[in-house]
């Protein structure tokens, strides 16, 4: 089936970011002094476990960032494309997206959540819980078959997960063994006893837990709504998975957008001092004196007005939502570059007095070259620490902005949107708890692993911390 690739702004940026990270990776690998702190990150067990979880989120986010429009029909050798934009993830998720119930249903339920009038085949009408259209529809007699069916699928899921885990573990040991002298079997023992330099055991255990939870979910999701459905019958699991992209994008694109401002202005203010410094300081004090929520709200309100007036500029709803997401990232970036700029300025003020920069000046190296070659590389550790610390804060901020009404477009699924629509359901009797619980679990997992990874990065890169730690009394170190 032919299809038309649809490159959204945020898609392009996220893949640009991916390319940048790949280029940096290649560059860092070739320079020992740059690779050393990363090796320290790799030795951190909690950091590596968190990274494993983050990889899962990133893979889903990236798969959800490749959009296309499928062809509906062929006419005179030309394809007519659907208005609906799909992502690769949508295609992989398949039934999750399409199989909608009518309204609320509990996780793994076979029947609807509330009683309704049903007409029996013989014409009588009774109030009962109607069967769901997709959830457990393959069961003839749900009362007796439901339990065994769930158990059987869970077992399949776990078995599949175990198989994947074994393959990954064997591959890992084989690759590790190739680099060293030990054979695969002995490597396996070393990994298991935690003797490897990189804590592969922690990574494998994390992977095992993820597969043990994920396997059954995948196995069940074909025939059930594993985490229930929401008010309009949309699968909650699908919503949560779609929200990952929104969270990831807000957390990373905002940083990508603010970095050029912060680095350039910070380095210039610190290096040139004087008038330039005054002007830049004035700029960031002014911007940071506006409460950031209000600045974001004001800017988003203005953008809403722009979108409503120029509604004809957007071909599809997803393009409109994407425009809004992009500007939200931009505004968040504008509201948050000041902190990093201040840090970089402080560091640049110190750096400009150091001998090697004085020497560069004496040799007649141009100011621009000094900033690019000597100042910026030496403030990169601050940039990196701020970027990873910001990520979790931004994911959390998205939820608050959604509640205030200045978050992402309502048609775009996000954790904030899920919480926002689910919070009213807590007042229902009996309560609808699964939407909120799902948003809670996914968000906690994402933010927690981001926080743990950020800690590992900070421990490795912050010179102050590595100076403080060994000074602790040796006997007390656990």
């Amino acid at each position: 089936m032919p299809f038309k690739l649809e490159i959204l702004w945020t898609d392009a940026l996220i893949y640009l970011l991916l390319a940048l990270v790949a280029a940096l990776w290649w560059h860092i690998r070739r320079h020992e002094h740059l690779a050393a702190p990363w090796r320290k990150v790799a030795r951190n067990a909690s950091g590596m476990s968190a990274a494993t979880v983050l990889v899962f989120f990133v893979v889903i986010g990236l798969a959800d960032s490749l959009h296309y429009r499928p062809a509906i029909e062929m006419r005179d050798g030309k394809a007519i494309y659907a208005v609906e934009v799909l992502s690769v993830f949508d295609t992989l998720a398949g039934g999750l997206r399409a199989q909608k119930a009518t309204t609320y249903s509990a996780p793994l339920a076979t029947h609807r959540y509330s009683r309704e009038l049903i007409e029996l085949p013989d014409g009588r009408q009774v109030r009962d819980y109607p069967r769901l259209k997709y959830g457990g529809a393959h069961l003839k007699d749900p009362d007796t078959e439901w339990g065994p069916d769930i158990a059987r699928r869970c077992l399949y899921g776990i078995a599949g997960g175990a198989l994947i885990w074994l393959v990954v573990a064997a591959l890992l040991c084989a690759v590790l063994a190739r680099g060293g002298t030990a054979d695969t079997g002995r490597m396996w023992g070393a990994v298991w006893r935690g003797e490897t330099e990189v804590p592969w055991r922690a990574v494998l255990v994390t992977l095992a837990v993820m597969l043990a939870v994920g396997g059954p979910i995948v196995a069940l999701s074909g025939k059930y709504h594993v985490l229930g459905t929401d008010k309009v019958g949309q699968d909650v699991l699908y919503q949560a998975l779609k929200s990952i992209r929104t969270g990831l994008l807000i957390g990373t694109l905002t940083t990508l957008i603010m970095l050029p401002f912060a680095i350039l202005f910070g380095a210039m203010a610190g290096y040139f001092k004087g008038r330039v410094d005054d002007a830049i300081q004035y700029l960031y004090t002014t911007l940071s004196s506006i409460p950031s929520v209000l600045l974001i709200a004001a800017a988003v309100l203005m953008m809403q007005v722009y979108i409503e007036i120029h509604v004809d500029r957007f071909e599809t709803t997803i393009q409109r939502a994407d425009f809004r997401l992009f500007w939200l990232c931009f505004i968040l970036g504008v509201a948050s570059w000041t902190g990093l700029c201040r840090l970089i300025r402080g560091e640049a003020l110190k750096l400009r007095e150091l001998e090697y920069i004085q020497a560069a000046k004496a040799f007649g190296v141009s100011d621009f070259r000094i900033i690019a070659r000597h100042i910026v590389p030496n403030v990169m550790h601050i940039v990196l620490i701020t970027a990873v610390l910001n990520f979790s804060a931004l994911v959390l901020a998205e939820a608050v902005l959604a509640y205030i009404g200045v978050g992402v477009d309502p048609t775009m699924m996000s954790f904030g949107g899920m919480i926002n629509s689910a919070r009213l359901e807590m007042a229902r009797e009996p309560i609808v708890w699964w939407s909120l619980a799902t948003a809670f679990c996914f968000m906690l997992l994402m933010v927690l692993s981001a926080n743990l990874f950020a800690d590992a990065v900070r421990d490795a890169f912050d010179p102050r911390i590595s100076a403080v730690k060994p000074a602790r009394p040796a006997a007390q170190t656990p």
Partner: protein
Amino acid sequence: MIAYITRRLLYAIPILIGVNVITFTLFFVVNSPDDMARVQLGVKRVTPEAVQKWKEERGYDRPLLYNEAAAGAGALTDTIFFRNSVRLFAFDFGRSDQGRNIGFDVRTRMWPSLAIAIPVFLVGLLLYVTSALITCLFRATYVDFWGVVACVVMMSISSMFYIIGGQYLISKLWGLVPISGYDIGPNALKFLALPVVVGIVGGFGESVRLYRTLFLEEINRDYVKTARAKGLSETRVLFRHVLQNAMIPILTGVVVAIPLLFMGSLVTEAFFGIPGLGSYTIDAINSQDFAIVRAMVFLGSVLYIIGLILTDISYTMVDPRVRFE
């Protein structure tokens, strides 16, 4: 000291002018008043007369910066910029787009905001500092380790879950306090209890971890070793010597927030139905009342600048080495 404060206040003027220019650009240049009127009145089926009437009622029918029609000083004062931006400097907030007096609203609604923000701030600070010192007391033991783990988990939970969880557990399940609402007088207590508790719990993880790091940076300094060598108990070392010296970095983050307590918390107030400035702002954002949002932006910046000045003054109080230049 008075000369110093005066100078700092004078420095604030260009910053506030900058804030005004930013908000003016955002609200009147990026989108013209015509666009705003059309959105307010519904994009489709809106007549030019209705737009004109909407603008006239709110005074948005004037020119942006320079009024050629008016005589004398009126050329500059009878403009949107002067009437809606410059007047803010005199704390004359004017009327909201719905016609309410913003200044009056701010004065009445700041009290409920303060009734929540001040207890959260004071009790929270006390609790966070004490908890952080206790984790330091047990540093490098399992108490410390699990304390930090709990902090990281707590700071990974969105503040909205604390509110929803608190409302569900305490109000709905146990029925201890009403879910939301507000009352004046002693009755207010039962409405304020839950927001205050939720506010304190919500900030726990991040603050305790931050303060713990600050204390740990001090804990290996020479003066602390001297204090221990003199035979002082570890509690005394921590709660007197370390705490006093860690006050400077703590103050940096804390004092600047004091004036902003007036603004209240957007999410907490909206969830609990407290008629404070936070919910006022949210209502304004939801009803797209730009006059209120502009006023709140200005007020927020003024309070932030006051906070910065207070921070500098507080340094001299805790650290005799810092002097006004």
